[in-house]
């Protein structure tokens, strides 16, 4: 009588034995990367209603971040500026530019410019800019080289693990208070020998970044 199973089937066990572990590990670490914000969110770069260029304003013109995001040192939100702020200059500079039509309109009517949110935390996690800034965490640390971005893109994953890594060990991400808004400081030579603990100009040196749940979830 004939065989139910052809000869090659005897190879299957070996193949499975080799494949299973590979696949298993692959799935776990695949999910760890492809399902995480590292992959899904970083680089998110929507087109904004007004083609505002940080590269031009923050980079070329060197306007300090706090000129527009002026609540960053005293509030949780580094507020997006009102059209008023734009008009401070643009009432005189490029007063008739097409690109600024929406801004002018907003300034006159009070209607908001519908900016699209780039750095978006889930609503159950609470982040406060002011406390991070006073602790000496620079804008660049989380937002990247804004001064080189024509369009603002998401630089950091803003995932829990990413936050925690710094909260476990903040030192590498601290800089002199005076350098908070400096772009590119991280690569600068003084960053290398900066010792946060002995910095006389720091408001406080006793950092205890919370690592418990209610530090961020309320």
């Amino acid at each position, binding site marked *: 009588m004939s065989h*139910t*199973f052809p000869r090659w089937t005897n190879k299957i066990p070996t193949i499975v034995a080799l494949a299973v572990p590979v696949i298993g590990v692959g799935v*776990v*670490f695949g*999910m*760890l990367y492809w*399902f*995480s*914000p*590292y992959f899904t969110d970083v680089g998110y770069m929507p087109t904004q209603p007004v083609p505002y260029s940080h590269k031009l304003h923050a980079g070329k013109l060197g306007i300090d971040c706090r000129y527009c995001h002026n609540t960053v040192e005293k509030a949780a939100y580094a507020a997006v500026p009102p059209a008023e702020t734009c008009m401070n200059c643009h009432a005189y500079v490029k007063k008739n530019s097409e690109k600024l039509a929406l801004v002018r309109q907003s300034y006159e009517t009070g209607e908001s410019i519908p900016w699209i949110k780039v750095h978006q935390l889930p609503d159950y996690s609470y982040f406060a800019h002011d406390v991070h800034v006073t602790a000496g965490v620079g804008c660049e640390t989380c937002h990247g080289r804004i001064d080189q971005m024509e369009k603002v893109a998401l630089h950091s*994953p803003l*995932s*829990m*693990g*990413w936050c*925690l*890594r710094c909260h476990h060990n903040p030192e590498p991400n601290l800089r002199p208070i005076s350098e908070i808004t400096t772009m590119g400081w991280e690569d600068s030579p003084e960053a290398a020998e900066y010792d946060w603990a002995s910095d006389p100009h720091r408001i406080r040196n006793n950092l205890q970044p919370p690592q418990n749940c209610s530090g961020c979830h309320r």
Partner: protein
Amino acid sequence: MDMRSNVDLVDRRPALVDPHEDFQAITKRVAAPIEWKTPIGWWLFFIPSVLLAASYGGSVAYLVWEGTGIWGINNPVFWGWAIVNFVFWVGIGHAGTLISAVLFLFRQKWRTSINRFSEAMTLFAVACALSFPTIHVGRIWLLYWVAPVPNSMLAWPNFRSPLLWDVFAVSIYGSVSLLFWYVGLIPDLATMRDRVTSKLGKFAYGIFALGWRGSTRHWRHYEVAYMLLAGLATPLVLSVHSVVSFDFAVSQLPGWHTTIFPPYFVAGAIFSGFGMVLTLMLIARVIFKMENIVTMHHIDNMAKVVLLTGSIVGYAYAMEFFVAWYSGSQYELFAFINRATGPYAGAYWTMVTCNVVIPQILWFQKMRHNIVLLFIISIFVNIGMWFERYVIVITLTRDFLPSSWGYYSPTFWDVSCFLGSFGLFFTLFCLFVRFLPMIAMAEVKTVVPEADPHPEEAATGGAH
């Protein structure tokens, strides 16, 4: 010398199988149910079971859509029937492995006729059991958080939680039982492979028989592996229900925070397990004409085990009260007095009657040999053991602060989920008895007199 004497020459006990059964007859008898044209009786069980199982699926779908609020759970009774059913099924899931593993280690040859059957029961019970803790969580789609896998939240499960122990204990228990059951099946699958004529049959049984050839070189490793599995399953079976009991014992609630829970739960589990094995065995034995293989001798033994464990459970009930009084904690004492006299006294006394009083009948051999009576008792045992878990969970209604006391009553969906799980259980079971050898042929053959390669020594009383 007469090889067909009524005495098993291997261990000088009453024959385990009818002495007129030889190898071939055993094979035939065991394979028969699979080779028959499906009996009506089978359909009578199968169709309702499938319908019930489907209703379970429906209930669960609605549960996930609407939320656990569709059950009767509330504050203070945050755990309701779901957990009751879970413990109930896990308990039942114990007899199988116990019979196969522990009795195997103790060289209880009478197990061979019933171990396959009860292992299968174990598997299906554990499947039902696992379904309940899974569906009872509030956000089932996040259940994978209990698994310790690296993630972008940098968060890990809390290994101090008895619930996490449970996740490991029950799922591992399930997997090991499956292995144990399957390893036992391999030679019989080979037998079926060699018997069936249909192409599909050859293929299906062939795949799972793994190309088994009954080679002695294989038997050599096989027997060791089986022995090891038995050796592992034995502590496992004890640990699982201990861990389940930790779900209650590790909390600090009056009536839950008790050190006697682990042994008491294990005894209860064996008790309920044997109850269920009896229930099923007594039916199957008749339907599939297995009287010659599952003899009165087996049934009598099982009845004895039921009597023993039932009495242990009864002792535990009594002990609980003593400890509650002896502890001097007013909360403890109240909790137990409240069980027996409070709003849920009915459940408590049902439990005592079914688990402790009724099994006492089994002291009499006459009763042990009365199939009908035995069947009824086994049903009572099942009911009683469900109520035992209900009584434990319902203790939540009255804990420390009277201000937070409440009441609990199940809803339609509690009931539908519970009955539905029976549907799942019996569906699997019907499929098992229809398509797989429900008795371990190879093992039974080993206890037939001819199985002995040295009959003359045995006849002359040669030692082994």
